[in-house]
Structure formats: structure tokens, C-alpha cells
């Protein structure tokens, strides 16, 4: 069996190095080695999206990615979403819209939704539903989650319009 491998990556904006057993998933390393337990495990085989993180700008089921594959990658997890104590608009709107009940699916939804809004700032309801179809929620029936993502998109658009005005 191979020994542990040193993996260098940018994790939530910080350059970092960690050791990974070649058979460990990114999810396991994030949770059990780096103690970033905000990323959740619901199924371990790519079917629930609770483990969604963003790798190089794309949403990834971290339970299906080996940690050693993250060499030189830029990784974003739910822990990196807020700026200090200022919540990301997605987080704020999820709270305001009651888009979570038990909350176990929430980090995955937040990261998948961020990945969506990063590339599509003005999605339709159908686009949101399509994009989030890989994330399971058993508590909410998705209604409030979809509404929250649409509203967060609007907040983000307004924020960037304001920022554009200021810089103009």
C-alpha cells in the first residue's frame, strides 16, 4: 500500500497542504483530517449532494473525488462562504426564507447554488430546479429552497449593480 501523499491546494482562499491516503475521498479528508465538518455525508456514492463543494469553479460531490485528485485545485467549502461574520447573501436569504429545517442538506445546497449563481446570475425557476436536482432534501419539499435561491440571485445582482455604479 502506498504511503500518504502531500496535497497542495487553495482551500477557502488559503493555500494549504495536507496529507491524504490515496484511498481517501476529498470528503473524508475535509471532515476527518481537516475537521471541516460543515460538508456533510448523506450517501457516500454521489446520489444526495450533501457533500457538494466547489472545485475549480464547478460543483463536485466530494465523496466521489479522491483527495489526491485535489492537487493544485481551488476548493471552496461552506466554511468559506461567509466573509468574517458577514454572511453570503445565499446564507442570509436561506435563513430569512426558512429554506432549511434539519439543515443537513443546507451546506450542499448552498455550495451548489453558489456554483449556479457564479455562472448564471439570473436563473429561471426551471434552471434552479434542474441545477439543484442532484441535491436531495427530505424535509422541505424544495419550495423554500428554490425561492431562496431565486431571491439570493436577485440580491447578488443588486449588489453587483451597486458595485458597478460606485466604480463608474
Amino acid at each position: 500500500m502506498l504511503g500518504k501523499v502531500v496535497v497542495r491546494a487553495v482551500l477557502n482562499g488559503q493555500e494549504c497542504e495536507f496529507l491524504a491516503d490515496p484511498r481517501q475521498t476529498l470528503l473524508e479528508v475535509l471532515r476527518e483530517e481537516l475537521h471541516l465538518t460543515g460538508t456533510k455525508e448523506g450517501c457516500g456514492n454521489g446520489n444526495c449532494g450533501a457533500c457538494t463543494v466547489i472545485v475549480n469553479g464547478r460543483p463536485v460531490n466530494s465523496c466521489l473525488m479522491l483527495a489526491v485528485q485535489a492537487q493544485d485545485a481551488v476548493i471552496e467549502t461552506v466554511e468559506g462562504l461567509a466573509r468574517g461574520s458577514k454572511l453570503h447573501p445565499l446564507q442570509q436569504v436561506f435563513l430569512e426564507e426558512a429554506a432549511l429545517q434539519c439543515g443537513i442538506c443546507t451546506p450542499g445546497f448552498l455550495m451548489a447554488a453558489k456554483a449556479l449563481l457564479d455562472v448564471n446570475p439570473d436563473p429561471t425557476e426551471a434552471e434552479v430546479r434542474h441545477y439543484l436536482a442532484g441535491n436531495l432534501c427530505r424535509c422541505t419539499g424544495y419550495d423554500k429552497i428554490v425561492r431562496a435561491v431565486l431571491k439570493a440571485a436577485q440580491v447578488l445582482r443588486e449588489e453587483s449593480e451597486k458595485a458597478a455604479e460606485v466604480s463608474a
Partner: protein
Amino acid sequence: MATATQYRVIGTRPIRPDGYGKVTGKDQYGADVILPGMLYCKVLRSPHPHAIIKAIDVSKALALPGVMAVVTGDDLPRIESSEKVSSGEETIEARFMTALCLAQDKVYFKGQPVAAVAATSLATAQEALSLIEVEYEPLPVVDDVLEAMKEDAPLLHGDLYTESLAGKGSKPSNIAGRVEHARGDVDKGMAEADVVIEREFRTQMVHQGYIEPTNSTAYVAPDGRITIWTSTQGAWDIRNQVATILQIPEGMIRVIPMEIGGGFGGKFTAYLDPVVVLLSQKTGRPVKAVMTRAEVFQATGPSSGTYIRLKIGAKRDGTLVAADAFMVYDAGAFPGSPVGGASVTGLSPYNIPNFKILGFDVVTNRPRVKAYRAPGATAIAFAVETVLDEIAERLGIDPVDLRLKNAVGPGDRMTNGVPYPSIGFRELLTAVKEHPHYNAPLEGKWVGRGFAAGFWMNGSGVSTVHLTFNTDGTVNLIEGSTDIGGTRATMAQIVAEELWLEMEEVKPMVGDTQIVGFNDGTGGSRTTYSTGVAVWKACQNAIAEFKVRAARMLEVDAEEIVFEAGDFKVKGHPDRSVNIREVIRNLRHTGGHFEAVGVSGGLKMAPAFGASLVDLAVDPETGKVEILRWTQFQDVGKAIHPSYVEGQLQGGAAQGIGWALYEEYIFRDGHMLNPTFLDYRLPTALDLPMIDTCIIEVPASDGPYGVRGVGEVSIVPPPAAIANAIYRATGVRMNELPMTSERVWRAMSQRQSRVEQEAS
């Protein structure tokens, strides 16, 4: 108590105080527990659905470097009695609980635990499982309830005799129990009916499907004291089960309920807790176990599969005159299906002068079932509400009118004879009739609208809460009810309402079994109701003491103090008053700190009625059902935090839709063929439209604000509503769940060939 128009906080939608930890990933769920020196546990499970364990050899596993301990059923005490332990909405014999943790001598279902390993890494624990040698003698398997009832079926338990009101049966049987309720004379009633419909129904096992897998971590200190960090709906249930299974006094055990990723009735059972305790006892180190999704499917309770035969008779004007229900509910490996719940729900919403209900609890070589949201009610409602739809159609009566004509009201009786307290079923049906959705036109081929109602008793039970007070004038609220969907927010709202504080001034938390007094678990839709009463009482107790303190501050007798709008005032001297915050800030100067406790128990039933209204389209080529519009109705008594009430309605409706269209355990010879979320399909965001809600508020008879529990009934009507809509869209009556594309397509094809045959 304030009247409806005066509430300041009840009925508003504050941000839930525990939400910040959830959106930032900081809250700790069970699997997030990481302790110094912690070991990882994996469980070896039976590959056979039914077998005798002849021998287990763990020596090779123990020799693997990194393996610290291995346990088997021999490490658990043998419980010979039929002593029972509580497990949420049911009780279960302790010996069967033992078998659910680690099998002793025999396995009854595939996935039953046989041995468990604690090792320094997950991978090592996993590897060790393959080194454990178990010799099995496979036995004949019965994995179908109707087969299991037959005289010559393989027997699961040599010592199981049918239990009924008549006593115990005389010879061992797979029929564990028999329930019966009756009123009037069914034969006479049927003879008087103008229309009689009789149908057979089948439903399959479905899982609660909580996204967070079952988990537990335990540490046993050198003095024997046990701490358990676990994901549970009922910390006291887990403490009682662990104490009973391991024969350890309860006082030695502290159960800390972590944040919980869904339960729906399924997280009341100590599947892993006794096992990690044993392993920690052996190693002196903390031990954590987390199930895989396949383990969750195969070894934690799904809900029963059922066989139901139902006959209902009605007069030409729609008056129901007789009903005859025969129900068989699959308990899985050990007795305890929710057939009792079924027998008092399905027909209870209607006044029927003559009925007979016969139900059987039957064991099979399948996972032992557990409560799932309104346990037992959904399958029987599927039968009752589709037969009523057929009767309405035959008689040319509007389906809601048919229900209104027969609907129960306060004082009418449930099928078990218990009279209803205040209920809002008629108000709910009227709201459906008046709703824009019900009156909107729906046109086109292959589309249909369906309606169905549902009923659930709702639980009450015991809750204890504590209020303590801070020198800045704020209040801590400690409840013992696991918060799955926002109860810290709703309980804090009650405190803020009663004490005239702002929401932010109340700091709620969930305590463990050593921090707060006894609490029944979060299940049976009881938390908002019963814990709400405890919170309300604690507030009244606090106000009583505050009056004494305010009197000291104002230098008058306590009898002269009144509490109004947040101020303690001297009667007749409105200018002499002190605000509650001042009283709290000064507690230590006016007699010292104190805490206010509230305990609830013995509350009247506060039943819930719900209904689903659906528009859907069926693809004639594939049988695929697409939900176009959904409205979920419910009498909630009083919505304390409307967003989370809506969430319960929407979530229950979504689960009901999953049960109706996609979800089922598929078995072959006792082997579940689809234990993944890929093959066992939960509804996704893409499968559902927005789920509209219509909240009706008919106050309950007991408790503050007239509130009723809201958690469960929303799962009851969806399958029947969908079946009724499929009929409108296609002309076929579905009598089996789930109504997958294939089943709908087959039913449509059969109907087509019947039509063609009749034509030729």
C-alpha cells in the same frame, strides 16, 4: 392569555436562532463529533435474510494492526423476558432491541448486525470486517406478508404467539398481533347501501429517508459513566434502551442529542449506541459509528408494506352506511407494525354507523419497521380516500361534498370509540371548496385533478423546560425536545410573547438528559403542542416569582402587583411600575437567582386533519406522472411560526409524493435490491412544483393559543390524491403504490385492450 389579535410574536416569522450554525457549517451533527483518541466502528452484517449463526471467529480480525476490539452478540446480556422499552411512538420488546444491535444465535433479516469492530481508522475497521469468519446455516425465507400468514409458512420465531384482545394464540405464528374495531352491523349496513365498492390495495415498504445517516459516538469513563453523542429524536428513549439492553442503571448514562439531520419517526432507536458503548468499555477510548446509506436502508426501520382489502357502502345521497376493512401490515423481523395507527385513522374522519376493521401485525424476513410520519395512516388513507372518490364518482357527487356530508365534528367518535375534542375537519373541507385552486379550470387531455383528506391523532406526552435569567435582562430557555425543524425558534417565540421580550432576548438551546428534566421525544407531532405548554407554564411560574421581586423593588405587597405589557405595575398606581427586564437584571438583589421550570403532561388530544389537492399530467406513451400544481391544506390550530408550519406541510407533501410515485423497497428472497438513493428514488427539486399551502386555524381544546402539532398529517393524503387525479387523467384506478411510470403505463395498456376487446 392574549387573544388572537393581540399577539406580538406568535404568528410572526423571526429568523431561527440556531440557523446561523447551520448555514455556516459550524453546528455539530452526530457524525461531526471528533474526540481525542477516537476509534472508528464498523458493523459486520448478515448476508442472509434468515439463518442460524453456528460460529463466529474474530481472531483474525483482532490480529489486524489497528484493531482495538471486536464484539458480538455474546457480549450483550441475554434478555429472556418480554420486558418492553419505549421507542418514540411505540414500545418494543427489549430482546428484539438487542437483536437489532447484535444478533444472538440467529439472524432474521439481511443486514442484521452480527459483529462490530473498533479500529484506529475507518479503513482498518472496514478491512477487519472481512477477516471475521461467521458460519451460518441458512433457513427458509418468507418476505411477503400474505405468504407469512399461511399455515405452512416458515416460522421466524418459535416463541411468537398472536396477541389480541382475546389473549394469546395457542401455537407459534408469524402473526404477531391482531386488532379489531367494530360498530353496528356491517352486513345490514351493506344491504341498505345503494352503491358498494370493494377494492384491494398493495403498498411497499418505504424509508423515512432522512439525509443524515444513523450514527452514535460513546465514551465510557474509568468509573463506568457513559456519555453518548447521537442523532436522535428522543434522548431519553435512547438512554432507556441502552440501559435496558446493557443492563446498566440509567443514572450512569448521559445522552447528548446532537443536531439531527432528519428523523421522521425513524430516529428513536438505539441501533448503534449500545454497540459503541460496548466497544468503548473494552478499549477505554471514544468510539464513533456512522452507517452507510445501504446500512440505513437495510438495517434501520422503514415503514410497513401493506395489503388492504376495503369495502364501503353508501346511500344514493352520499351518506356512508357501512365499511369493512381488512389490513395486513408488515412488521419486518420483529413485531410492531403501525397497524394500530391504521385502525384508528383511515375511517375515523367519517361518521359510519356500521363498520368492522380487522388488522394484522405480521413478521417477515425483512428489516424491522419503525415509525414514519403518521405511522400506519398513509396506506389505509390511500385505500379509504380512493374508494370514497369512486363512490363520489358513481353517485355524481363532488368528492369534497361527499366528505363534508360524512365528516366528523367535535363530539363524534373515532373508530376506537374515543370522542373528538375540538377539530377542524369541516372547516378544512370548506376551505378546499372555496380555494382558487379547487375552482380553477383544468383542461386538456391526460390531465386530472385529485383530492384526498387525511387524519392523524397527534401525541402529547411529557415535556420539561427550564428558564434561567441573565444579568442583562435576557432569558435562557433550555428544552429537552430535539429540534428538527425549528422548535427552538417557536419555543423562544412563546417566551418572548408571554414575557413581553424581543425574540433576540430569548436564548434557546436543547439540553441533554443530564441538563434538563425528562422529555418524551420529538415525534407524534407533539413538540410544539406539549413542549409549548411546558414553556408557557415556565413563563407563568417566572411571572409569579417576578411579581414578588417587583413588589420588593416597588416596596409594596406582591398581591398589589399586576403584569401588563411587560411591566409589573402597582394596582391603581399606573405610574409606579418596573419593566420585566429591570426585574430580571435585579434578581440577585431582590432575593437571589432562580430558575423557572415548566412541566407538561396529560394534555387532551389535539388531532390534525389535512388534505391534498393536485393537478397532474400523465404521459400516455410512458405513464410518467408530472405534478403541475399542488395545494396542501391543514388545520394547525394556531401557526406560531408560519414559515416552519408551511415547511412541515410542504415536506410532508413531498414525502407523500415520493411514496405515491417513486419510492419502494424491492425485495428478492429477502434481499433488498435497491439500497441506494440512485435506485430508491426520493423526489428531487426537478420532480416537484412549488407546493402551495393553505393553513386553517381552528383552536385545539387544550394548551396555549389553540396550537396543534403539525408534523405528521401532511404525508397522509398525497398518495390517494395522486391516484384520484391519475384516474381523472387516464380513466385507470391505481391500487398499488408506488404508481411508477411502469405501473401506470401497464394499467393504461390493460384498460386500452379491454376497451378494444369490448368494441370488437
